[in-house]
């Protein structure tokens, strides 16, 4: 391989990797905020994203709604459905058993319900293409070629993350969310309504998944199984330590970039194993993940 080809591949791999990585980062963030506050991983995260993608598809394509209506509506639906699932179903499960295993099983159930709904509605059987919300014309960044859509994806993901981190760090609601994650008993003693906080955390996680869905759907073929892409969000979360929010973001970019570099330098058939090689490398060097603190994934 010549040096110039090497540089071209490197630049292209990093550019495409950052775009996909920003979406993985969003998914990882959605997973980790739920894990931090409820100590159970949400295995419905992928299908929450898939469900949101189909809601958007329905509004944009079947109902011909303009994006300015369809996008906010999709986000609201994702918020409401996720918050209600936590408030009506998970709250009952937590109250009657409290064991994380039962919570995980409930999220698996939710995941099947969502997939069943999409299949039952008859829209999930044939693969569909999602209308891109920005132009797919290419532009060059140095030697790397990216589309306008790629830039929109990356920009929107970064903005979403920035807004989320600001909320989490500086608002009263964010502080209450952190308090519930850190010490739920103490949070109750200072008067935090933890049932409400759990619902809001789930709602927020639904919103982030919906944004990820809107961003990624134009780049993949839509099927009722598209939620499996969230595996890469889990991979990103693991790399970041599973309970670290900045870790989730960095993990997302690590996965995105390594996937693309492997695809270019090794083989496109090796792409699927890249994330798992990345996980193994990170876990060998730092078993607690890049940003993991004292408590790593000990529950479940």
């Amino acid at each position, binding site marked *: 391989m010549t040096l110039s080809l090497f540089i071209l591949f490197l630049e292209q791999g990093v550019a495409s990797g950052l775009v996909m990585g920003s979406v993985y980062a969003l998914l990882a963030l959605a997973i980790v905020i739920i894990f931090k506050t409820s100590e159970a991983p949400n295995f419905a995260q992928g299908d929450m994203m898939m469900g949101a993608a189909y809601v958007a598809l329905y509004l944009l394509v079947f109902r011909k709604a303009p994006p300015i209506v369809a996008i906010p509506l999709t986000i609201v639906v994702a918020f409401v459905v996720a918050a209600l699932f936590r408030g009506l179903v998970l709250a009952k499960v937590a109250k009657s058993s409290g064991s994380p295993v039962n919570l995980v099983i409930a999220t698996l159930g939710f995941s099947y319900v969502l997939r069943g709904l999409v299949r039952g509605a008859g829209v999930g059987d044939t693969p569909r293409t999602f209308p891109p919300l920005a132009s797919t014309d290419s532009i060059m960044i140095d030697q790397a070629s990216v589309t306008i859509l790629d830039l929109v994806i990356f920009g929107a993901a970064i903005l979403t993350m920035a807004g989320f981190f600001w909320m989490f760090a500086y608002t*009263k609601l964010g*502080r*209450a969310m*952190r*308090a519930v994650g*850190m*010490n739920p*008993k*103490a*949070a*109750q*003693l*200072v*008067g*935090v*309504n933890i*049932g409400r906080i759990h619902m809001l955390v789930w709602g927020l996680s639904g919103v982030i998944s919906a944004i990820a869905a809107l961003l990624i759907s134009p780049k993949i073929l839509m099927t009722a199984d598209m939620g499996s892409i969230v595996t890469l969000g889990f991979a990103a979360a693991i790399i970041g330590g599973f309970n670290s929010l900045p870790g989730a973001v960095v993990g997302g970019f690590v996965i995105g970039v390594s996937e693309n570099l492997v695809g270019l330098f090794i083989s496109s058939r090796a792409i699927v194993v890249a994330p798992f090689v990345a996980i193994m490398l990170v876990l060998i060097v730092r078993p607690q993940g890049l940003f993991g603190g004292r408590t790593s994934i000990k529950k479940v």
Partner: protein
Amino acid sequence: MVDLLEIEAVSASYGRIQALSDVSLKLQEGAIVALLGGNGAGKTTTLNTISRLVPVTSGVIRFDGRAIERLPSHEVVRAGVSQAPEGREVFKDMSVRENLDLGAHVRRDRAGVRADLDKALDYFPALKERLRQKAGTLSGGEQQMLLIARALMARPRLLLLDEPSLGLSPLLVQKIFAIIARLHADGLSILLVEQNVAVALAVSSYAYILENGEIALEGRSEALRNDEAVKRTYLGG
């Protein structure tokens, strides 16, 4: 005079373990009442039934005349009851300042919160220099002070204190009890759980002694201090 807190025949259990049976207790506005007893007697459980972390199986808890034993825990805080729990339950990865701000979570009056922060730091000057420090890195005594200060930030009418002297040096115990006396002088009502019976009987006006989840003895603190049985069992002679 109307009782600020009135617990009537309250029972509570953890699964099959009966932790409280028919506990009754009263506290008048402005008083310090002590709740004493050995390890596992049910003192913490009693406070937690008031704070609604532990459900009651029967009985009534009234605060300021209103039944609170079915309210959610945040409503109890809103009603004016704050607890400084045992066991260093701070938000350890947050700064001392954030811990104190969380103490005021149920309040909307910004100016009042600001004033109460100054007041809390006036009671506990040691926290003043540590506002930006993570709560988990404070010493045991400092964490204990933070817990009380955090409870005060809700501007409670009734403060529930769970073993504030546990694990502290004699000097710090003195300091904490001097502050408790000051809070009392400033008009706060306090239900004080303690194993340090001598000190608790000295600051309180009335006391209850729990044994195996039941009230075994109660009376004016002064009288209990001179009671032969209490002296023998709890005051070491």
